[in-house]
């Protein structure tokens, strides 16, 4: 069984069953590291990706429902050489300790900035409520999202 998915603008065929969670396909078939397994229960947000612009938990999203969707992972935002404003801001704020939750944080923040380019601190906190961080990097993460919003505002 093969299923076709459009990830970061590229169509890919993957040899997986339709009930396979998107997360495993992204990580194992497409070799994308960003989305992480944290709970498998849509409780922690570390597997967050964008599906048609909406932040979604890839650990509970079966690929069979996604053949017509545009999937964006953190690899689709930018790269080491050409980071997205959010990625740049997270580096500048040193907004990671272990960093395991950070891809999910950035993807949830991307959805926020797409619909609200100038969020308040409270907006950021609310938007990231479903993304858990265990190291206590919360302050830096919030500051990084606000910094990215400011950077976007200037361009």
């Amino acid at each position, binding site marked *: 069984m093969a299923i076709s998915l459009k990830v970061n603008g590229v169509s890919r065929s993957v040899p997986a069953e339709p009930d396979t969670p998107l997360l*495993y396909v992204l*990580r194992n078939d497409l070799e994308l*590291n960003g989305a992480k397994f944290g709970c498998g229960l849509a409780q922690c947000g570390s597997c967050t990706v964008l599906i048609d612009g909406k932040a979604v938990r890839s650990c509970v999203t079966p690929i069979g429902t996604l053949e017509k969707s545009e999937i964006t992972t*953190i*690899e689709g935002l930018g*790269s080491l050489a050409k980071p997205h404003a959010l990625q740049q801001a997270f580096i500048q704020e040193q907004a990671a300790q272990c960093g395991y939750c950070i891809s999910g944080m950035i993807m949830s923040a991307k959805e926020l900035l797409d619909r609200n380019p100038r969020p308040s601190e409270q907006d950021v906190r609310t938007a990231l409520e479903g993304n858990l961080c265990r190291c206590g990097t919360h302050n830096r993460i919030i500051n990084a999202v606000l910094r990215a919003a400011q950077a976007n505002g200037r361009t």
Partner: protein
Amino acid sequence: MIAPALNRRQFTAGLGAIVVAFSLDPRHASGQEPPRLPGSLQTNRKLDGWLRINADGTATVFTGKVELGQGILTALAQIAAEELDLPLARIKMISGDTGQTPNEGQTAGSQSVENSGTALRMAGAEVRAILIELAAKRLGAAADQLAITDGVIAAPDGRKVGYGELAASVDLNREATAKATPKPPTSHKIVGKSIQRFDIPAKVTGGMAFVQDMRLPGMVHGRVVRPPRYGSKLDSVDEASAKAVKGVLAVVRDGSFLGVVAEREEQAVKARDALIKSAKWTPGPELPDPARIFEVIKSLPSKDATIGVKQGPVLASARVLEAVYTKPYMAHGSIGPSCALAELKDGKMTVWTHSQGVFPLRGELVKALKMPANAIRCVHAEGAGCYGHNGADDVAVDAALLARAVPGRPIRLQWMRDDEFKWEPYGPAMVMRAKAALGSDGKIADWEYELWSNSHSTRPASTNGTNVLAAWYLAEPQAMGPPTSPPQPAGGGDRNSIPLYDFPNQRVMHHFVQDMPIRVSALRTLGAYANVFALESFMDELAAAAGADPVAFRLAHMKDPRARAVIEAVAKKAAWKEGEKGDGTRGRGIGFSKYKNLACYVAVIADVEIDRATGVVRVPRAFAAVDSGLIINPDGLSAQIEGGIVQSVSWTLKEEVRFDKSGILAVDFATYPILTMPEAPKVEIELINRPTERPLGSGEGSQGPAVAAVANAFAHATGKRVRDLPFHPARVKAVLA
């Protein structure tokens, strides 16, 4: 006339041992002990064990300490680059590999900068001196006339030689002498700077950053099935039901250890579900009644030690106060469940692991797999945030057991969320009783404190048992080693139980409880979080009884100038107002400790807001002042202190591992909630740099002061005190009723 030349240790070791030592080690022929070397140089004495100079002008640094998300590899690279006069970009770090690096035991207890950092500082200075000596010969100039810039050594006449050109003639296969003087802090160019961490760019762009991200050619996927509770026995399981799942390569059963290997990860998960469904277990002993857990802990056999005794006169007129505090079991709750890769190939087992100690882990693998140490290699790769002894070592052994079923194919095993929550060793539940006499002068005249706690250290490698989960469930089960407790002054359950305050009389008793009804081990700070909570809460209770301001009361009992400085600095930063009253829903409190009574000084002030109707407590803001001696990386230090405060607020407000007699009830983030983004306090930090003092461990310095600050802020706001953690809404409502 041999005896006078022997030191006490050799003498008491017995004659046989002396003879052997003489014949093996020429240093002993003269009756001399090898000189004491600083930091981890003492146990890893060769220079090339730490540093190598490469032909391309770079240096390779080897450390036994590992990255846990605390930024340690960046800090250690800063130290090495500083002493070697190399730009950071030309430092390559290799860490935690039984095949390559020094054995520095565990990366734990905020000791990496102190131990590995000191070794690298001294080794770096010595290697630099060796390079200068070689360059002097090469250039025909006096050593003290040479100047080094970015790894190039120049003579006064302008002739130059680079480290790369000297690489071939540098022989570092020699014992360190620790005679070269490291740079004075005033000439530091890299140490003391907020260097950005090396690992962050990859982590924000989907780079390969974690052991969870490793993909080896031909890799397959494993999952394990754990029993319903501790000590259960697997009676039967329908292996065929799992083998019927597409892609399954093997079902592995060894006694009550059960796992599965499949081509694809989701297939392994499905096969795990099938095994869970059909497995029949004889359950192990019931867990204690959670309502009586603290009585149970106090009633179990304990080894008792009296520590920190001071004796002086006590006035008969003194007022006596007493209070009992408790702390529940708490989970590490890392966001990424534990993970390892293992491959058995040509009789050799390689394990990629986020263990805090690759050498101790190898020790347990030797026992669990019954393989010789030289057939096992453990290589560190980062995992999700590590806050102590979590499932890292256990999952590595699980992976190795599964790898034996598919030789030649690397297997990747990540625990499921419930594996992690139900089976990780928790931070132990503790009971703390404090009693003090308050003199008519408003000062503490007598202090008595006792605590009951299980071990905070059941890590690998045990000297007399096997300290990894799977080993206890094999067909030939291996027993867990006896519980241990690090001795004072650092301590285990009794960490930070001896007050730093100047009391004329004090007595501290550590009841080290031996039986372990629930699996426990090291969680960040060991006993310090609970002891600082109790000790600093009680300081505030005494201050209130004396009618004194909490900051002034602490200063009145504290001589240590560095402790006073952080208390005064945080009071200033938070604009603390002496005698200010809480208003029933808002308040602020202070907490202080010198971590382990020998590492960093931290004082925290927290603000709280209480919704009296719902019982929900919030911590909108916290301030901290920190003295960690010489600061290696200011931003890295801030991140550790800030993270520690937020994590401690999470522990304090929300966290408790729930269980009943049938087993552990914490299985996910719904049954074990942690602090969310809207709930996180804003944190402001002041660093006090002391360039002439040695660097002090700081990764665990702020959790104790933070819980105390929150508890004291609650009491300040409401006039009522919560002495049992956490601040659950129901408990808060009951206290306020």
